[in-house]
């Protein structure tokens, strides 16, 4: 059965230096408002990890904290052996993490190709081979390469946002609800694409409202409730756990 991971003293967490990403005792929030308290999380190399939980549990806040977009209040975030807890996003991107926000994740007035170029801004040269890779992964983007991103459909924008994040060939990709706002028939396709990104060696930390589908596909999952760890286990275990189901609905 799922283990309680809320009390760190009782759980032996892996040594941070052995993990790609290790979050320990993280407290974070926005301004004065604390959202996360004492959060623990790990992502191993090439692992696919999903964070689920009820609305307002602080799932997105975890990802934003990793990427330096929240107010840091304590604890640590270690990536690839480096403490990045108090770094800014423009420094973190050099470490090999890319982030796809849930909304506003493309530059609407730039063309598709320009969006991809912006994804590799920190490189000296536009990496044509990476653009080619992204086009191969998402062929529709090649077709639309000269079109303004704002004119793409929701699903295409989501692909572009992922493509932009993949331009730096990151070790870890942070995805915030990639299926949000997609028509039901596109959701499956989006999850397939994420699987393939993971298969090609990129570790993924993803927040997903569509818990069932996400837990089915991931390696491991975390259940976050009210800004704290509630459960963690293999995706399939969590999926079939009656207690987890109850916690989503209370009672």
């Amino acid at each position: 059965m799922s283990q309680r991971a809320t009390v760190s003293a009782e759980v032996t967490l892996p040594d941070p230096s052995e993990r790609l990403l290790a979050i320990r005792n993280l407290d974070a929030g926005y301004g004065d408002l604390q959202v996360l308290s004492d959060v623990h999380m790990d992502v191993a190399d090439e692992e696919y990890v999903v964070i689920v939980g009820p609305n307002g549990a602080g799932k997105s806040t975890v990802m934003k904290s990793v990427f330096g977009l929240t107010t840091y209040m304590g604890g640590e975030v270690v990536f690839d052996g480096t403490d990045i807890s108090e770094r800014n996003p423009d420094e973190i991107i050099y470490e090999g993490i890319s982030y796809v926000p849930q909304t506003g994740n493309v530059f609407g007035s730039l063309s598709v190709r320009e969006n991809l170029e912006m994804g590799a801004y920190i490189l000296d040269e536009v990496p044509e081979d990476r653009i080619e890779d992204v086009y191969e992964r998402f062929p529709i983007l090649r077709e639309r390469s000269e079109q303004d991103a704002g004119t793409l459909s929701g699903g295409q924008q989501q692909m572009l946002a992922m493509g932009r994040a993949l331009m730096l060939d990151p070790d870890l990709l942070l995805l915030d609800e990639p299926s949000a706002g997609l028509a039901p028939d596109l959701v499956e396709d989006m999850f397939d694409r994420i699987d393939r990104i993971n298969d090609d060696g990129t570790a993924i930390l993803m927040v997903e409202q569509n818990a069932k589908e996400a837990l089915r596909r991931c390696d491991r999952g975390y259940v976050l409730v009210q800004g704290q760890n509630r459960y963690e286990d293999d995706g399939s275990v969590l999926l079939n756990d009656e207690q987890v189901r109850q916690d989503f609905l209370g009672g």
Partner: protein
Amino acid sequence: MSESSGTERQTATVDSDSIEDPLLEVDGLRKQFGGVVAVDGATFAVGEGSLTGLIGPNGAGKSTTFNCITGIHEPTGGRVTFDGQEITGLPPYTLANRGLVRTFQIARELSDMTVLENVMLAPDDQVGESAIRSVLPGLRDDVIADEEAVRDRAWETLDFFEIDHLAHENAGNLSGGQRKLLEMARVLMTDPEMVLLDEPLAGVNPTLEEKLLERIHELRREQGLTFLLVEHDMDVIMNNCEHIIVMHQGSVLAEGDAEAITSDERVLEAYLGGEV
């Protein structure tokens, strides 16, 4: 009540026809932003004096429904009826004057005003809201008499929510939980018939949560107020609301009491994100 959202009703759900004395009726409410349909034919009713819960996964359209009812957004279609009168698309101040008020998801205190000022702002049609009356010597006496009454009521309300010790503090200096209490106090000062609470417990610690819920129950009991509550914390909804409305993809998926909702497989599916 007319037809509802195309979703088939389950045996466990209670048809809104069964709501006795509906105070608020929402019929086929629809709101579209550009190409996105946020609310798609939501139909439900809130019984007078009830504490009704409105739940649903992210993006189900709860907040938009709230905004359409309270006049922040103009609905694209559908009807909203309050106390027997159609109120669709009326501006927020008209609704508030008729007794329908709301709180906000993120407490919106008037931060550079004191807690007392925040609370004293709320009552309707204060004599001193007239510029002339507040200035002219003869007329100002009425203003002062009215102000004294408002002030005394404000203190009572602050006492009720136990934030009287903060009365002269700027609202911006309050903690998150205190802001929630202030917002409730402010709304009560408008002398409402019905209050729409948008996540009143988000970011509130358990002790305070208890206190707030106690106050809500007390207000129902003693003043007969009606509450519609959007809340993420399922325990709160299940333990406090006698009637629960579940929204999913812009329309009402199920209705009923806590037991009916928890045993409704489709609600679970909606939350876990499966096909519905």
